[in-house]
């Protein structure tokens, strides 16, 4: 499974909404912002739809 996952750190407000819906536990909210765990990501795109700021882009 492959694809790309991108976050626009200027738009991201570190709210953690994406983390709460990630079915693969591939996202974490740390003090430095959203942390993406590539090995776990299934590129399903649920995080991108949830993001209130439209800061995440997922392609598969």
């Amino acid at each position: 499974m492959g694809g790309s996952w991108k976050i626009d750190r200027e738009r991201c407000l570190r709210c953690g909404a994406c983390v709460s819906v990630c079915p693969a536990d591939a996202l974490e909210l740390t003090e430095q912002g959203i942390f993406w765990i590539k090995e776990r990501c299934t590129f399903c795109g649920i995080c991108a739809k949830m993001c209130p700021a439209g800061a995440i882009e997922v392609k598969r």
Partner: protein
Amino acid sequence: MRDVIIVGAGPGGSSVAKELALRGYDVALYEKRQEIGAPKRCGEGLSSSSIERLNLKIPRHCIRENIKGAIVYAPNGKSVEISFDRVVGHILERKMFDKWMAEEAARAGAFVRAKTYIKELLFENGKVCGVRGTFEGEEFEERARVVVGADGVESKIGKMAGLKIRSNPQLMDSGYQYEMANVDLEHRGYLELYFGNSIAPRGYVWIFPKGKDVANVGIGIAGDHDRPAKSYLDDWITTKPGIRKGSILEVNAGGIPVGGFLKNMVTDNFLLVGDAAHQVNPIHGGGIAESITAGRIAASVIDEALQKGDTSARTLDKYNKVWWKERGEKLRKIEKLREVVEEMDDETLNFLASELSGRDLMEFTRGNRLGKLAKILMKKPGLVLLARKLL
């Protein structure tokens, strides 16, 4: 070894910490952000009935505005006014309110510390026995008899403890908000809510006033939309010259749990409180009162368990039982209402605005008078199926 470690200093975590510290336990409350209460992920409303029920003595500096009612706008612009001759709620300053709650915990004797990031739970024989975190770049480990996860909608602690807390995207709203100054508020002291599937699909736009010309202007929409909440809100603001002219003081965002309450919120030596356990009113998205209520239930269950010297899942299960009886069953009813409202097209919303009084709307948000709503829906043959879902 502490008695209790609480992860997350929102209203839920601070309530647990205060209640247990007052009972004489050795309690630590850790917050990952550098400032408790900021940035907020909240519209900041809290009803007077919740404040009375919880007997909160909120200091004046935490309150920005007194609320006397609400005006609800249907998609066709028709409005329903809910008006009272007394104060029925407040818009808070969460930054101040959350700090006050943490102060209360500290005053009661809890050890409170911001900028402390809890990375992992510690386990012994498969059971939670403490936390591992960092503070000022130094890693530390601390053991506790009970750990409480009050770490918000993105709760990591809950997942680590093995609880099924991941939210289905249908049960998580996507929220975006600007705190704005120099806006024209036509109805000072009134909440304004705007419904319509093109304005806010499966949600609404809100104006929560924080004074004569300051307000939280926000939106909550279903979390599985292709267009982001921000873009819907920006579009709506463009149509409102009195809002559009305002300045932006803060930008807020967040996921709002609007259902999917957890049957089980405990495991051995561990329980979950607040947004982490989806303890939010599914129709208006308010979570402050729910978190404090749950926090107090959790504290008294933990107290009993510590006294017994048995903090196993079987003992802590009382938290599940009491919460479901006192709040869960009610919230589940409100969740059903939300499911019904989400299915309404603009025509149905307009129809309801012409049939319902402000008082009805207010009772609905508390899970009351749903039979009346069902009856009105039954008047239209096309809505009978929808009405049945409420019964």
